[in-house]
């Protein structure tokens, strides 16, 4: 069974630009969670999508947004990039169980 996949592996952007990160959940999983792992800040919950809808978001500004497609894959968009957005962005998928299964992450570097 294929795990959670994320693309791209690395992304380098300039301050003020937009970044788009993608996630494909485990087959059959309907929920996708996004987390930010920034240096010194640990893992922070960003967004939760389920059945195509944004269900909840963490304490992040509106320039962090995304969507979930009918096939349950998801996209995270970060607008007006700031230097402090540099981080590893992790996507996790889940079905109805509590545990979440993580992808390998996208390393976003903002210069």
């Amino acid at each position, binding site marked *: 069974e294929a795990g959670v996949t994320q693309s791209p592996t690395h992304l380098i952007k300039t301050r003020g630009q937009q970044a788009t990160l993608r996630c494909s959940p485990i087959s059959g999983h309907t929920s996708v*969670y996004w987390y930010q792992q920034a240096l010194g800040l*640990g893992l922070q919950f960003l967004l939760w999508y*389920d059945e195509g809808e944004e*269900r*909840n978001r963490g304490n992040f500004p509106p320039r962090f947004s995304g969507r979930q497609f009918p096939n349950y894959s998801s996209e995270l968009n970060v607008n007006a990039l700031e230097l402090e957005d540099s981080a590893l962005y992790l996507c996790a998928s*889940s079905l109805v169980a*509590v*545990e979440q299964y993580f992808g390998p*992450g996208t390393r976003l570097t903002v210069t």
Partner: protein
Amino acid sequence: AQSVTQLDSHVSVSEGTPVLLRCNYSSSYSPSLFWYVQHPNKGLQLLLKYTSAATLVKGINGFEAEFKKSETSFHLTKPSAHMSDAAEYFCVVSDQILTGGGNKLTFGTGTQLKVEL
């Protein structure tokens, strides 16, 4: 509110010796608890989970953890460390249902495990 405290930011052991990574949690409800491992430049891998069944939980790669409600602890152990165990380990608690039914995971700050020859 839920929280997790990992008591050691770095642990160093010799190969073949026992591993103990300590975790204390705070939870308003009956929590689910997890240990995840992250190897360098990789995502998080689920090692084991506790969801109110047996208090001694066995995971992958010989790891296990014991849920102790009276001590609010969920320490991770392994009888004999291997070089491949060198990684960062995260203790995670989930007791908060997000609006809409999802589960909020709260992560500890991580323990870096170093295994020496």
